[in-house]
């Protein structure tokens, strides 16, 4: 691969590029889904290709192809330069990149048991056993079980002299039970909704998640939701579980701190950010209990790697420190706007996409509460688990989330079950209402493999660490 990358970089420079990088990416995936005892799909996929990114005449150009040869590399490099020159016909400031060292390195993610070597029968056995257990509950009318495996091997080279080879494997699984009665459909998931939980690792991840062992509780809670009380309406003290809080961090901290959004580069599609450059080191994002980091070095996390897709080493960087905004997620280009170097957040969804600023493992750092003490300290509130729906405005200010299940908290104790809980808020007000975060004993990293951004759409695999936390006076039961 090294010779093909070298050919592309040489051709780009010969054609007038002042900078070029090239990625050759080989991905492999397997998805298995079961519904109501039937195998709905078993699918394997392989994708291989090359992408060449250049700066010429001060502008970006990118070309990519599934044909990976010395000849195609040269053609692509020339095409990318021609595209960059077309970009330059519309006036604009020339691209500037923050400095980065050249690296010659190799990085591999953790994987104990290669999931692609595990027989399909073993995989189906886990899913079908879990699915059958869910269906044993007569009020559960629809069940789904899913597992997936994703492996990537990529080579990166740049005209700075870097050559980096990386590979890793991701594994995920989940189950859902739907209780259906009349026009009501209520779902309960494990270990998380929207495809379960995803972790860097191999078959050992599936064994640890233990879908069949958790199916009885999931089915029981789905059935119980049919008889549960509706979510109360009004302002209430809200305790949010780690999985939902991970998504809350994702939508209302991760995305607004992406510096390309702050600078307006994603305005027309995903939106901008309520943050401005002047907010750095001045804006009180949340209460003193809120510290949020971006960390690409967390072991086994979907947000971890050795180097990003610009050849910048993985880093841990604070975004919010004791409530104060102290950082953004950056690229080499955007980092120049805050006079910093890149903190290594550029990742591409395959060979045919340019890298964009993506979250790594963006986490709410743990506090010191036990969950038991937090409930006991709450006189009148609501505890909710597991996301069902999410929506947030184009500046990442006005959000509304719905969850699968909740419980009333009365006089320091969990009480009646609540169905269809939802809550809404405005980002800084919400994070400033946080007065307690549970400890590391309750903290877990949740993997999300469905973060959409960019045009053409790219799907990133990211992660969020969170423990249950309490927010005072949150609006719940919206529009119900």
């Amino acid at each position, binding site marked *: 691969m090294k010779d093909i990358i070298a050919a592309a970089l040489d051709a780009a420079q010969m054609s007038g590029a002042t900078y070029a990088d090239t990625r050759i990416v080989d991905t492999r995936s397997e998805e298995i889904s079961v519904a109501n005892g*039937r*195998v709905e*799909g*078993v*699918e*394997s996929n*392989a*994708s*291989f*290709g090359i992408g060449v990114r250049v700066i010429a005449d001060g*502008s*970006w*150009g*990118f*070309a*990519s*192809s*599934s*044909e990976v040869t010395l000849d195609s590399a040269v053609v692509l490099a020339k095409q*990318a330069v021609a*595209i960059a020159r*077309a*970009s*330059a016909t*519309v006036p*604009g400031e020339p691209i500037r990149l923050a400095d980065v060292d050249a690296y010659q390195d190799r990085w591999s993610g953790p994987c104990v048991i290669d999931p692609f070597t595990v027989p*399909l*029968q073993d995989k*189906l056995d886990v899913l*079908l056993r879990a699915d059958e257990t869910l269906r044993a509950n007569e009020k559960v009318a*629809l069940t789904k079980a899913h597992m997936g495996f994703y492996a990537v091997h990529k080579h990166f080279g740049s005209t700075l002299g870097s050559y980096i080879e990386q590979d890793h494997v991701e594994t995920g699984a989940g189950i859902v039970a*739907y209780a*259906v009665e009349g*026009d*009501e*459909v209520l779902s309960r998931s494990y270990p998380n909704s929207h495809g379960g939980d995803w972790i860097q690792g191999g078959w050992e991840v599936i064994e640890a998640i233990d879908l069949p062992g958790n199916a009885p509780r999931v089915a029981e809670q789905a059935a119980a939701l049919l008889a549960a009380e509706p979510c109360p309406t009004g302002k209430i003290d809200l305790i949010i579980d780690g999985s939902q809080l991970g998504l809350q961090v994702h939508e209302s901290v991760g995305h607004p701190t992406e510096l390309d959004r702050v600078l*307006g*580069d*994603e*305005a*027309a*599609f995903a*939106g901008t950010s309520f943050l401005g450059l002047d907010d750095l080191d001045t804006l009180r994002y949340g209460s003193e209990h809120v510290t949020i980091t971006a960390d690409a070095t967390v072991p086994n996390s979907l947000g971890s790697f050795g180097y990003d897709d610009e050849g910048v080493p993985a880093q841990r960087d604070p975004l919010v420190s004791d409530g104060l905004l102290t950082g953004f997620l950056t690229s080499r280009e955007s980092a120049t706007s805050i006079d910093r170097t890149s903190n290594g957040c550029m990742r591409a969804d395959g060979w*045919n*996409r*340019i890298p964009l600023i993506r979250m790594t493992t963006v986490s709410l750092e743990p506090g010191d509460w036990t969950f038991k003490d937090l409930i006991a300290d709450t006189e009148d509130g609501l505890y909710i688990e597991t996301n069902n*729906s*999410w*929506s947030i*405005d*184009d500046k990442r200010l*006005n959000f509304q989330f*719905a969850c699968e299940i909740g419980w009333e908290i009365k006089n320091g104790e969990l009480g009646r079950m609540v169905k*269809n809980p*939802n809550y*809404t808020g405005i980002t800084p007000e919400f994070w400033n209402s946080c007065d307690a975060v549970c400890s590391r004993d309750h903290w877990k990293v949740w993997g999300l493999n469905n973060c959409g951004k960019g*045009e053409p759409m790219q799907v990133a695999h990211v992660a969020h660490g969170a423990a249950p936390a309490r927010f005072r006076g949150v*609006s719940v039961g*919206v*529009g119900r």
Partner: protein
Amino acid sequence: MKNIDATRDLAARTVALAQEAGAEQAEVLAISETSSLTRFAGNRIHQNVAENDSQISLRAVVGNRTGVASTNRLDQESLFACCESAVAIAKSSPADEAFPGLPEPTPVTASDRAIQRTIDFTAADRAQAAGAIIEQSRVRDLTAAGKVQTTIAAIAIANSLGIDCAALTTSAVATVLSMGGHGGSGWASFIGPDASELAAEALGDQAAALADRSATPGILEAGDYTVVLAPEAVGDLVEFLGWMGFSAKAVAEGRSFMTGHEGEKLMSPLVSIVDDALASHAMGPTFDYEGAAKTRAALVENGVVGSPVTDSYWAARTGTANTGHALPAPSAWGPLPLNLEMAPGDASIDELIGSVDRGVYVTRFHYVNIEDPVPVLLTGMTRDGTFLIENGKLTRPLKNLRFTQSAVQALNSVRGVTRERRLVGTEGTASYVPGLLIDGFSFTGQTG
């Protein structure tokens, strides 16, 4: 330019290879695509990309067991390995007694939807269009962001029972968001098969004028309001109905508003919705991803709920005809309508606005998501041109509003429909919809 014959040949060759690898039946979806996209933001081009990819997806059948494998490595050895993988998956999968076998060939209406002018649209053409759009904002001291994109796709489907169909399609998409310094923003979009129909300057002007008009937006108390939705906002409601409700699988699983209500009136008599890939304005192929002919499906007729769309599997499961709405195998979604169309009314958008004493005009929604599947309870935000309507006129711009509203209930409260319809959405799922006047639309919050 994509070669339709080569793509068709690739599909046929892979079917033969799959049979050689042990498949009793085989179906191959081959797609060869060139996509080029120029993005702009901050009044400059900041991303400019091109992609060239070809791939196949194979469904192998052994008895009533199926397996799917796909690859973009198209040399003979890799193709055969992919076939062996699909066959191995099929052999390892449990039997599905309900699987009816692959569909037999049906006559497919030929359509030539590729436009040479789109195929010939170059990076320089895209840059010129982007420049013309940007200029309309720049001269008003506004900031433009958006894209100009073209896609040329050859798609072929073949199966071992004789299905052999192929189509070359083109699409051109342009969007523009114009933003001002006083909280104003405006939006305009274009989608169609012919890039030469993109009136870049006019598109840029439309968005910039809206941005100017929506500057210094104000507050509106949450509550139920009469709304006038422009077509782009209507497109979101209709698409969510499609995803959540119009599939035979969703109906069979009890997740659809149609379940148990076929033949009942659930919406306003002014609402009729069909899925029609054969319509002159429709984009994409006239066959589905199994190679079955797409048929016109009457989903809602004068407010009365019709029947959902099917594919070969769900047609057999439910004892109904195959309407030709299969997605690529294996599809956990089941069949879906991708060419939705809402019937026009007899009003202009100005007449709808003129009939409202106090209400809200919505240019488009943002980040809509489903909270409850059966009523299609949606939440999302308004964006890029929300105005208060008073005494039949747009009187002042509003800050973005959050709505939490059942789409079924909203379409039951339709009081007016525009004559003019627009194609909105993406090249994969474009809907042809009018503007609507709806009573009692629930706004539950606002970005203050």
